[in-house]
């Protein structure tokens, strides 16, 4: 049997794993980025309590490896009577991770907006909320887009960590197939190709956006 025929045989099972991986990545991005936005605003808030809380959430999310958080959610929290299904625990851990990383990118984006924009808004008498949501945010988010796309790719690859708590995602599928007839080389190569098939085009799109952004800066 050649690699190609083997791959064709494995592919259906791999595809279901890939679907789960994509689902976890999508959830962690769709829920994580809005949370990241809230954190990025809280981190620069005047209120000390909200600033401290946000800072703690961001620093833990970025400082601790995602696997540690994943284990804490899955194996740690049941100690307090909070038990999650493995896929839920994986989503929650990765949401935290993506919120923490995306918040820093958004904060940098917001800070990169020219000070003159703030002055012009003040001089016009615009209320702070209008200045923030209509003037600063759209510009800050625009410059954050390439970074956020980068984090999205990382999140997708990070879903492979969910293998460690037996979520039936891409790595788990690959391992299951591999352990049947010990074709680890073929199957993990295929798994790698599956990740690359998503990540590489996504990276190209990111680069395209970066270039476009640089041109319209």
């Amino acid at each position, binding site marked *: 049997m050649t690699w190609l025929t083997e791959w064709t045989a494995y592919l259906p099972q791999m595809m279901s794993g890939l679907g789960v991986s994509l689902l976890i990545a999508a959830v962690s991005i769709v829920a994580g980025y809005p949370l990241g936005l809230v954190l990025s605003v809280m981190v620069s808030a005047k209120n000390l309590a909200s600033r401290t809380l946000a800072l703690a959430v961001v620093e833990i999310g970025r400082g601790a490896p995602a696997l540690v958080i994943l284990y804490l959610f899955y194996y740690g929290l049941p100690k307090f009577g909070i038990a999650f299904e493995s896929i839920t625990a994986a989503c929650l851990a990765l949401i935290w991770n993506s919120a923490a990383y995306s918040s820093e990118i958004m904060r940098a984006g917001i800070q990169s907006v*020219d000070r*003159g*924009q703030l*002055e*012009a808004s*003040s*001089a*016009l*008498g*615009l*209320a*702070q909320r*209008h200045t923030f949501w*209509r*003037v600063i945010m*759209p*510009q800050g988010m*625009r410059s954050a887009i390439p970074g956020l796309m980068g984090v999205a790719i990382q999140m997708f690859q990070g879903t492979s960590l969910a293998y460690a708590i037996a979520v039936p995602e891409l790595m788990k599928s690959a391992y299951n197939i591999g352990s049947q007839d010990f074709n680890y080389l073929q199957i993990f190569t295929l798994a790698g190709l599956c990740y690359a098939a998503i990540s590489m085009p996504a990276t190209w799109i990111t680069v395209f956006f970066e270039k476009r952004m640089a041109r*319209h800066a």
Partner: protein
Amino acid sequence: MYHFTYHVTWPTSTDGLLVPTWKIAMTLSEIADGKLAPRTGIKLDKISKRYGDHTVLDDVSLHVEPGTVTALIGPSGAGKSTFLRCINLLERPDSGTIQVAGHTIEPGKVVNNKDLAALRSTVGMVFQSFNLFPHMSAMKNISFPQQKVLGRTKEEADARSMELLERVGLKEKANQHPGRCSGGQQQRIAIARALALDPSIMLFDEPTSALDPEVGLEVLAVMRELAADGMTMIVVTHEMQFARDVSDTLVVMADCKIIEQGDPGAIMSDPQEARTRRFLRAVLER
């Protein structure tokens, strides 16, 4: 019932960029509606501003009559911009009193956000770097503040924006983003944006310094029209010709103080202060 007619006349600009002469008659009720703000002057008394140990403004006083143009000149670091920015409280002075558009601001007095917004919408400001909102079209740049600050509907705001774009000669740029406009065009849009809030006072902070000389002319032409219309204006500038031709009062600042003020022609031909002479020689003999 009052019946009061207000005539506004716009002279045609020399380069033909701007709208032809037209007249509008307005009743007092229309003026009260904010279509044309009442003329107000500015009184600044003993304004001082320090950043730590560094003094930027030292006891500076200036009275500006309604409907006059004041040109503020002087070497860099003299405190001209800071002084200008004190008028709409972009900078809060450490001491001194500001009376502008019916508001009195004193040190220690808390200005609430509502009053601050009201004051700022009666004082228009134009910046050296234009500061247009790059993610909005020219039209949106002008309409958006009207909707948020004055509560105009989108239709009202857009109609006013179009009127102003036409007045600054940029009707065809309405749907373009600032990035697609030249520096001079951007500055004219910025002037239209400030005018859209019907300010009674306009502040210009080196409006042509970021523009090449030819492009600067089209901005100066708009400002000349505004002055001819009777807008109260304070202009920080290095454009000596403009200061001489258009301003009613020339104010010379150096070393955190006003060192000389009066008739522009008189000061330029016969400055009383040695510091003024030195500065004028430097700019005029360039």
